[in-house]
C-alpha cells in the first residue's frame, strides 16, 4: 500500500522533473553553488584554525644569556620558571647544543657552518620556554625584564611570532565573517530559486492538482511529488558538490600543505572529514529542498 503510493508519487515527480528540466537544472545548479560555498568556507576555517593551532604549538620564547651569567644563575631561572603553572616546558640549551643546532641548520652551506667552531663559539646559552598559552609569554617577558634578571639576559625573542599569530587570528575572523555572510546570501538565493522553481512546477501542474483535490486525493498524494522534487534537488546538489569538493581538495591540499607547512592536512581533511562534509552537504541540501517545497505547496492544499 505504502509502496504503491510511494511508487506513484515518485513516478509523478520524476516525470515533472524531466518535463521542466531547465528549471530543474537551474535549481540543482544553485543548490550546488550554495553547498560548495558553504563547504569551502567551512574548510577554509578548519584549515586556518589548524594553521593557527600548529603555529601556536611552535611558538616559544628563547631567553639568551650573557657570557658573564653563571650556569647556576641560569638554572635558578629555569627552576623558577618550571615552578609556574602556566609554563609547559623549559629546555636548557648549552653552548655545545647551540653549536650542534647551528651545524644542523646550516649543514648545506659549509662556509657558514664552519664560521663557528667549538673552540671559538660565540653562540649564547639559552632557555627555550613553552607556555600553556601563547598569551602567557607576555607575563614571562615582564617577569624576566625586571631588574633582578635583566642584567643576566642578553636578549629575549618572541615578538615576531606573536604578531604572526595575531595576524592569523585576524585572518581567521575575517574568513569567518565573509564565510558566514556569503553562505547566508547563497542560502537565501537558493531558497528563492528553489522555492520559485517548485512554484512553477506547481503552476504547470495546477490543473492536475485541482483535479486531484476534486476527486479526493489525500494531502500526501498532492504534496508528495513536490517534496520528492525538493529532496531530488538536495541530493543531486549535495552529490555534485561533494564530487567537485573532493577533486578540488585532492589537488589543492598538497599545495596548501606546502605553503602552510602542515603535514596532517591531507589525512585529517580528506580521510575523516570528507565524509562529514558530504554528510553535512546532504543534510543541508535536503533541509533546503524540503523546506522550500513544503512552503511552496502549503497554500495549494487548502
Amino acid at each position: 500500500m505504502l509502496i504503491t503510493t510511494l511508487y506513484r508519487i515518485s513516478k509523478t515527480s520524476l516525470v515533472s522533473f524531466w518535463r521542466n528540466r531547465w528549471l530543474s537544472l537551474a535549481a540543482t545548479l544553485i543548490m550546488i553553488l550554495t553547498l560548495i560555498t558553504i563547504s569551502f568556507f567551512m574548510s577554509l576555517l578548519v584549515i586556518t584554525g589548524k594553521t593557527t593551532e600548529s603555529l601556536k604549538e611552535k611558538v616559544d620564547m628563547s631567553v639568551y644569556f650573557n657570557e658573564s651569567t653563571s650556569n647556576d644563575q641560569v638554572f635558578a631561572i629555569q627552576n623558577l620558571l618550571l615552578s609556574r603553572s602556566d609554563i609547559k616546558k623549559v629546555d636548557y640549551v648549552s653552548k655545545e647544543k647551540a653549536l650542534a643546532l647551528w651545524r644542523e641548520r646550516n649543514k648545506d652551506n659549509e662556509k657558514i657552518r664552519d664560521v663557528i667552531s667549538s673552540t671559538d663559539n660565540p653562540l649564547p646559552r639559552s632557555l627555550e620556554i613553552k607556555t600553556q598559552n601563547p598569551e602567557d609569554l607576555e607575563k614571562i617577558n615582564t617577569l624576566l625584564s625586571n631588574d633582578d634578571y635583566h642584567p643576566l639576559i642578553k636578549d629575549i625573542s618572541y615578538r615576531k611570532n606573536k604578531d604572526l599569530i595575531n595576524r592569523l587570528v585576524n585572518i581567521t575572523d575575517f574568513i569567518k565573517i565573509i564565510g558566514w555572510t556569503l553562505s547566508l546570501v547563497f542560502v537565501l538565493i537558493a531558497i528563492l530559486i528553489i522555492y520559485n522553481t517548485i512554484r512553477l512546477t506547481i503552476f504547470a501542474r495546477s490543473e492536475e492538482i485541482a483535479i486531484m483535490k476534486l476527486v479526493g486525493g489525500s494531502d500526501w498524494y498532492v504534496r508528495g511529488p513536490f517534496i520528492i522534487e525538493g529532496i531530488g534537488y538536495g541530493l543531486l546538489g549535495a552529490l555534485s558538490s561533494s564530487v567537485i569538493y573532493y577533486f578540488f581538495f585532492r589537488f589543492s591540499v598538497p599545495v596548501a600543505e606546502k605553503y602552510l607547512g602542515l603535514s596532517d592536512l591531507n589525512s585529517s581533511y580528506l580521510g575523516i572529514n570528507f565524509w562529514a562534509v558530504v554528510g553535512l552537504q546532504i543534510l543541508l541540501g535536503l533541509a533546503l529542498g524540503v523546506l522550500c517545497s513544503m512552503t511552496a505547496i502549503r497554500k495549494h492544499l487548502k
Partner: protein
Amino acid sequence: MTTEINLKEKKEETKEKPDKTLKEAPASRSDDSTVIEFKNVIKEYPGKVRAVDNVSFKIDLGEFISLVGPSGAGKSTLIRLLTCEEAPTSGQVLVAGRDISKLKQKEVPFYRRKVGVIFQDFKLLPKKTVYENIAFALEVADASNEEIKDKVPKIIEIVGLTSRTKAFSEELSGGEKQRVSIARALVHRPKLLIADEPTGNLDPVATWEIIELLFKINKQGTIVLLATHDKEVVDALEKRVITMRQGKIVSDQVKGKYIL
C-alpha cells in the same frame, strides 16, 4: 429539427424512471432522511459581496434537484460550500448531520470522495486515456492496483464508454468527455453527485444523454444536484427546482419550472 424530436423522444423515455423517486422524495421529507442541510448560510467575499445570503434548505435521500438562476446568483458558491472548497462566513452546512466547515484538513479528502462533482469544462487530464483518467481518481485516493483493475472497467461500462477505454480524452467528443468525468465522479461511489452546468458545452443530443445518465445514477440512490441554465432541461425534468437570485433562494418548488 431532428435534434428536437430526438430530445422529446429521450424525454419520453426517461419520464417513467424518475417518477418514483419524485414521489417518494418530497413525500418523505422528515428529518431522518435529510442528508444535506443549509442553515442560514451566509458567504461573504472580501469587499462585502454577499454571494450567498442567508440560505436555508434541506436535501433528502434520493432527491434530484435542479439549481437554477442567472449568472452571479450564487449557484457556484453554493456548490463550493458543499465541496468544502469554501467555508461559510456564518451559518452551517450539515452533511449527514455533520458541519462540514468544521472538518479537519486531513478529513477533507475523505469527505470529497463521498461527493462527486462534474463541471461544464469536464476537468479531464488531456494526456491521459479514458481508463487512466478514471484510474487517477482511485490512485490519488491510495487505492490498490487490484482495486483499480476491478473498478475502472465496471464504471466505464456504466457510462457506456467501454469501446473508448483506450482513447485519449482529447480525442473524445464533448458528450463522451462528460461521461468520463461522470465515471470519475462515481468511482468512489459518492452519496451526492454535484453537476455544475454539465451540459453547458454540449449539443442537445449529448445534453439529453447526460441528463439521462444522471437520472440513472439518481435512481440507484445517489442524490443529484444539477446547477443549470438550460430551461428546456429543467422544465422537462419535472423535479424539485431551487431558484436563486442575488444570493437568495427566491423559490423552491417540488415539481418546478425554470423561472427567471
